[in-house]
Every structure is written in structure tokens, then in C-alpha cells.
């Protein structure tokens, strides 16, 4: 699997899900209605940077805090196709994988990239390319890779049931 897109960089470490999607909007259950509130506590201007193939480039322990799936649901609805981070918080990582939103751990690429960079993520080769410069990413465990290839936990469950 290979994903190419334009980087939108969030520099800070330990960005929590409260700033990514404030609690007062947790009473919304339709994903289409969530995306207008994405990044509201961090930098609402980031929403203007979103395009159909946005690759979010993020720091350490990204997505720490609440289990709210509203964050990756809103990201998908906003055009995010992949995340490249220094590292990710536990539940946020699970939520992205379950929704078929790939994320890779690649600190080198994060350091190199800035908003507007051209980023290519090659999951098979384990390489992230930023404006032509290649960085090795941490290997994704086989199970997680299967889920990403299937398109998320639900299609993965359907495939398991069929086999």
C-alpha cells in the first residue's frame, strides 16, 4: 500500500484529543457533523489546510487522552488519508486502525516535513519519503497491517467471517 499526499504539520508533542475535538461537541453522533469542530481547541485554521489527500504529520504521543472516536472520524471526513508521527497514544492508534486510517511511526520524516511538503508513505517497503528524502519507518505489526489492508476492523471482521 502506497499513499501520497500533502503534509499538514502539527509540531507539538502530547497533543490531546480534547484540543483536537473539544468535549462540548461529543453529543454529535453523525461523523459528517463532526468535521467542522476538528482542531477547534488547537488551531481552527488547520481546517483550511485540509484537502482530499492530506497526510497529517505529528509529534510524540499524539492523540493522548480520551477514547473519543470523534477525532479520527472527523479526520477521515476532512480528507486525512494517513498520519505520520513520532509516536501515538494507545487508544488513538487503535481508533485510527479500526477505521482503516493508516498511521506510521517515523520520527525522521516528522522532523523533516512541514506543512506543504510532498509526502509518500510506502507501507510495504517501510519507507516515508518527504520532498524526495527517504526515511525508514517502524514496521507495523502484521495484524495491524492486515486491518489497514482490509480497510479497518469492520471489513476485517467481514473477511474473517467469510473465510
Amino acid at each position, binding site marked *: 500500500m502506497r499513499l501520497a499526499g500533502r503534509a499538514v504539520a502539527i509540531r507539538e508533542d502530547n497533543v490531546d484529543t480534547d484540543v483536537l475535538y473539544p468535549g462540548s461537541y461529543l453529543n454529535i453522533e453523525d461523523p459528517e457533523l463532526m468535521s467542522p469542530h476538528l482542531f477547534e481547541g488547537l488551531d481552527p485554521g488547520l481546517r483550511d489546510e485540509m484537502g482530499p489527500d492530506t497526510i497529517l504529520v505529528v509529534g510524540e504521543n499524539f492523540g493522548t487522552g480520551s477514547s473519543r472516536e470523534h477525532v479520527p472520524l472527523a479526520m477521515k471526513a476532512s480528507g486525512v488519508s494517513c498520519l505520520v508521527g513520532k509516536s501515538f497514544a*494507545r487508544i488513538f492508534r487503535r*481508533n485510527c486502525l479500526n477505521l482503516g486510517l493508516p498511521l506510521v511511526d517515523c520520527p525522521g520524516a516528522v522532523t523533516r516535513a512541514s506543512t506543504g511538503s510532498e509526502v509518500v508513505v510506502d507501507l510495504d517497503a517501510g519507507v516515508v519519503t518527504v520532498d524526495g528524502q527517504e526515511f525508514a519507518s517502524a514496521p507495523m505489526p502484521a495484524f495491524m497491517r492486515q486491518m489497514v489492508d482490509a480497510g479497518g476492523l469492520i471489513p476485517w471482521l467481514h473477511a474473517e467471517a467469510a473465510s
Partner: protein
Amino acid sequence: MAHTLAEKILLAHAEVDDLSPGDIVMVRVDTVMANDVSGPVAFRQMEKIGAARVFDPTRVVMVADHFVPAKDARSAALQKRLKDWALDQGVAFYDQGRGGIEHMLLAEEGWIVPGEVIVGGDSHTCTYGALGAFGSGLGSTDIAAALANGEFWQPVPATIRVRFDGQRRGFVSGKDLILAVIAQIGVAGATNAVLEFVGEGARALTIDERMAVANMAVEAGAETGMFVADQVTREYLADRVTRAWDAMASDADAEIAREVRIDLDALGPLVAAPHSPGNVVALSDAIGTPVEQVYIGNCANGTITDLRQAAAVLRGRCVHPRARAVIVPATQAIYRQALREGLLDTFAAAGAMVSTPTCGACFGGGMGVPAAGETAVTTTNRNFKGRMGSPDARVYLANAYVAAAAAVAGELVDPGELLEAPL
């Protein structure tokens, strides 16, 4: 092969011969929990899975606790969705006014025994580790799969042993113990690991205090946090459950990732300053900080223990003119217990507001959010920027003695100035 407590529990719930940290296994659940925020999103995902019914309605529990009582029509619609779904599925349902904050409630109601696996659509599901259970906080798609199939995928975590040496002194509570751990290892210090709390200082804690500790394991990035079940656990569960359980512990020669030691003899009250639970400082270094709001409640510290501590400070005193206080018993049972003990009257007489059990202002859901420019002292578990509503409010996390003392003084003070000795 020697195993840690977490490994033993997972092994007993997985169809594998053995497991070790890093393996990803499908784990059978004993209980699935969701609330008015995570539930409705999960129900949509469950429909996509194609499952019309839950795997076992006796193992599913729904709790209305976040936007409770509903603050607006959108929140009310969410509550209605949760209620309609729960009644249709025939699962256990704690409606508004009948239960309280999910984690305190499930422990109190006998849903949790040592050695069980509980998944919850809430990151503080790690609280169940207070009873020696494996509580895993998950998002809504994970919860949907668990509702449909009774299992979830789980990477086997490494174990970080946290040893509490010595004895607590003064106005130090469970909150200070876990803040001390987060201060030492950092907010991502337990990534891919469980925190296992051991030592004489751990054994000396009541279940209320153990819940305060386990609750904030997620604030160190942990998969979950766990105590070893013992006589304290047995006494807590005696009137709550009839089903049998075995006390399990890590093997002496089990491999752990790291040991962290906290010397309780040398520990004083701590606070987490804005805007991170990892921004921990000694209370003595924050004395004099002006405070406009105090909030005592939440799934970490809304227990009867916390309310008694707060009442001891507030009895015969008034909330400072600069400040206001909101006090939120975590469950209906705690609320009624506090009523019987006269604690609620003490709070009301002091000029504090007493709320029905709710997650409320902890996550900015209503029921007492601070204004921009204000400082709050809370017994909650997160003080992220904007967590309580305004990105320009400042939140200090503290124990109930410290929070109540701040309400009286209108600033952070040593509770020892108001109270001769702890309860």
C-alpha cells in the same frame, strides 16, 4: 513460563497456548460497557458489522453519565438513543438518576471481580484495575465489535511494576500517589505497558483510594493499571458479588519492563499544574495561587472517601467570596450515603453547590464550567487546555483535602492550616 498478572488474565481469556509482550491476541470479554457518548457511535458501527443483537445481553451494561442531565436538545437526543437501544437489546441500563459515573458505579454494583476483562467506551476504564481486573478503555468501533462478538484485539502489554514503599503521611491521598508516578515516568512513560501497583503502600490503600490511583494510569499512557487482589478487595466485594473469583498475582520470576519506586514516607500533597497531568509540582510550590472554582467529583475522586475529606475541611466554614465550589458525588449510592452522613448539608451550608452524579464539567459537558481567565482546582484526572470548556481557563488537579481547602481560602493553601489532622 512465568507470567505477570496482566499476562495471566489475558491468557485465561484468549485461545492461545501462551503469550508474551508484543503479541496481538483476540481477548474474550466478561463485560462490555458504554455511555451516552461512546454508545451511540458504537451502535452505528455495530449496524455496519451486520449484528442485530449483542453477543450476550447479560454481559453488556450501558450508563447515562456524560451529558447528564441533558443540557440541550442534542444531548437529550443522545440520551434517548442510548435508552431506546438499551431497552431494545435487553441489556443492563443505568438511566439518569439511577446510577452515576460509570466506573465508580460498575465497581459498586458488583460488575467487576478480580481476574475479569472489561472493555469500556471510555479511556478511564482502567479504573477497574483497583479490583485486580483488566479494564481496557476503547473507542466506539472496538466497542461495536465487542458488543457483536464478545471479543476485542489486544496487544499483550509489558509490565511496569510500581512499588509504593513506606506509609502515607499527612494530607496525602491516592491522587498524590498516582501524580507522583506520572511525574516520575511522564505522560507517555507507560506506553505499551500496564502499571502494576505493589508494595506495603499499595496494600494499605482502600478500594476508593486504589480507584483514584488506577483511574489515572491512562494519564501515563498505560494500557491499564492494576492492583493485586487481597483481603481489602475481598471485603469490598463481600456484599457486592456472589460469583467466585481467584486472587491472581504476577509470578515472582515474571519478566517486567521496569520497576518504579515511590517513597511514601517522603511524599507530600502534589498538584498537576496547567495544562497537563504530567506537569506535577509539590503543593508547597503552588501555595497562594488564586482560585475561582473548585470542583470535587469525577470518576477518579468522587467517592465517599473524597466527600468525607472535603466535608472535614468545609464543616463550619464558608466558600471564599472569590470562589465557588461544585461537589459531585460519583453515584446515587454515594450521594445517598453523603446525605445520611450530613455531608451534603455541610456542603450546602458552606455555600457549595451539590450536583447529581454526572461527568459534567470534568470534560466541559456542563454543570459548572469555568470562565476564560479563571483558575479551577479539581479532583478530576485531566487538565488539558480547554478540557473544562474554555481554552483560557487554568485547571490544577489535586486531592479532595487540597481542593476543599482552596475553596475556603480562595487560593491554594496547605490543608493543614484548616484541619489539624487527616481523617
